[in-house]
């Protein structure tokens, strides 16, 4: 779970344009929705405020990179994905929708998304 290699994979994903069409063709999801998910996960900055109550000030920043998320995105591109990969997309789509509708707080958006579309923790349980 090296953060350096995850950063490199995220840079590759950000610089790729064909992934949206590839994932759309393998999943049947609309390209416009996939574009919003990609922007939310890999490109846009969010108001990261999860730990304000513990003295960590909120800040605008991109999400930190994660090897398992990059791997899921690449499985979706090649059509080798599973249900957990699709559930990750659904969780992130819900988070992004909440932010557009209710404001930029990651804490609020994540909690709302988690209640309705829980993240697929099994993606991180695999060796």
């Amino acid at each position, binding site marked *: 779970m090296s953060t350096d290699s995850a950063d490199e994979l995220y840079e590759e994903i950000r610089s790729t344009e064909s992934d949206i069409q590839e994932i759309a063709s393998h999943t049947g999801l609309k390209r416009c929705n996939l574009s919003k998910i990609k922007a939310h996960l890999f490109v846009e900055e969010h108001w*990261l405020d999860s730990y304000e109550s*513990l*003295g960590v000030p909120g800040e605008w920043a991109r999400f930190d990179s994660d090897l398992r*998320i990059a791997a899921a995105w690449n499985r979706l591109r090649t059509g080798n994905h599973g249900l957990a990969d699709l559930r990750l997309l659904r969780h992130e789509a819900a988070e992004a929708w909440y932010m557009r509708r209710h404001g930029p707080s990651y804490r609020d958006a994540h909690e709302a998304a988690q209640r309705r579309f829980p993240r697929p923790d099994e993606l991180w349980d695999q060796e």
Partner: protein
Amino acid sequence: MNFSKNGEFDVITRVTGPHHHYLGLVLRTDSGTALAEAEDLSPSPVNAPVDWARVEQLRSEVSRGVGSANERLGTSYQASGIRFCSSDPPLKDVYRILTEELVQHVARSRDDNGAGLDTDGPTHPVHSRSES
């Protein structure tokens, strides 16, 4: 990753979208510092049972992370205080990696501030950020 300082604790937070994690450590270079008990900062119901297996896993990962960072950096840090949030998801190895990143950040900061001396630092939160 976000780095901040809160009293004697150096703090790292990581937010990936589906997950977020908080880890605070008191890092000292005194020889013979015992690995600290872990303090849970999560708001939790009174009398909520302590997940001792999780706490031991956390302490083990912090210990391995400090050891690994020391080996790589040629330093001799030890963690004499640990803070975490039990409401954060218990992903395998996440605290080892956060520990390594935090030790590296602290080592560089202390080098910048002069000869790797341990200081208590500011009592108000100060924060900075690095990629990932």
